[in-house]
């Protein structure tokens, strides 16, 4: 991760903002479920950042305190500095924020209606599928590199086991990852 390598034009910045506006409304189950599409757009389609920069951005946000959605700001920052962070962060927050406030007032009153129940029931499996896909895409660069494969896979499995089997804070796992990585094992 370095300072922005590509200078984005005004039109490209607007495009970035518009793309995140759309993703905001699709982010059922959290912003992280839209990470695969951000990857497709920023790394695959436009080559604004590399695969490693993308994964590192998410790792930095996870390592820092605060909501995971802040990885969106880091991605924008790495593409185009402060303006990039403003574009991605306001894009991902504005539509869902507006919708949340009004829909929660509306939905609370109609929680048990058939339409609202069908909406929840239908979208739950998609949310879970999206989370699996996100985990896969985040793990791929680590698993795909033979020199560090054993350590990385070990860390991934240890994190899953730690979270599912124990009630430990994820903070300890993130710390474990930092130590193992700093020793050059992951």
């Amino acid at each position, binding site marked *: 991760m370095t300072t922005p390598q590509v200078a984005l034009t005004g039109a490209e910045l607007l495009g970035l903002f518009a793309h995140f506006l759309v993703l905001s409304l699709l982010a059922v189950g959290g912003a992280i479920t839209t990470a695969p599409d951000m990857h497709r757009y920023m790394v695959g389609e436009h080559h604004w950042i590399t695969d490693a920069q993308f994964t590192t951005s998410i790792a930095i946000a996870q390592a820092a305190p605060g909501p995971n959605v802040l990885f969106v700001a880091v991605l924008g920052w790495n593409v185009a500095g402060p303006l990039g962070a403003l574009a991605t962060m306001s894009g991902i927050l504005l539509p869902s924020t507006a919708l949340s406030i009004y829909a929660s007032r509306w939905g609370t009153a109609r929680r048990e209606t058939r*339409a609202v129940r069908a909406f929840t*029931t239908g979208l739950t499996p998609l949310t879970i599928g999206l989370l699996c896909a996100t985990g896969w895409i985040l793990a791929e660069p680590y698993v795909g590199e033979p020199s560090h494969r054993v350590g990385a896979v070990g860390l991934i499995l240890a994190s899953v086991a730690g979270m599912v089997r124990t009630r430990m804070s994820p903070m300890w796992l993130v710390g474990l990852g930092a130590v193992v990585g700093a020793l050059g094992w992951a």
Partner: protein
Amino acid sequence: MTTEESTPPVPVPGPRSSADLFVTFTRLALQGFGGVLAVAQRELVEYRRWLTREQFVEMLAISQVLPGPNIVNLSLMLGDRYFGLRGAASALAGLLAVPLVIVLALATAYAEFASVPVVAGALRGMGAVAAGLVISTAVKLFGTLRTNRMGPLLGIGFAALTFVMIAWLRWPLATVVVGLGTVAVAVAWRKEVP
């Protein structure tokens, strides 16, 4: 500690002001490494007692159906309930402002030290854990498909289809959510008792 008794059913004292909301959400955001939801439950239900456990679960369920990060939606709803739009804005700002400064400072610092092998290695290790944390969330939620009102087979089927379309075929998310999502909601509609 007996959390059962420590959560009074009604009524719960709410935040005193928008500033109180801001400070509380800043506090809980700064304690949340790798996700804030667990900390939010402890802070809002057990420590501040602004919400009963039942109210918290109810708000979380609605947050999950709505687009956007769950914790962001939850902060908006809670703020809105007490102080309208001003409360919603205060809670959201509390959740994001200080952590945003920290994370961007870290990203900038990382750029300086990215060439140091120990720092790059530490980040790699944390990245692998981050992937593991996302996978573990998926694993935990996978169990809910068993009780999905569509039935477990259809639920797992839709989850698997979503995975293949996004992770392997790399289709745009909009296509998958609008296309497959419509089919899934339509199937669920037929299964729901009118």
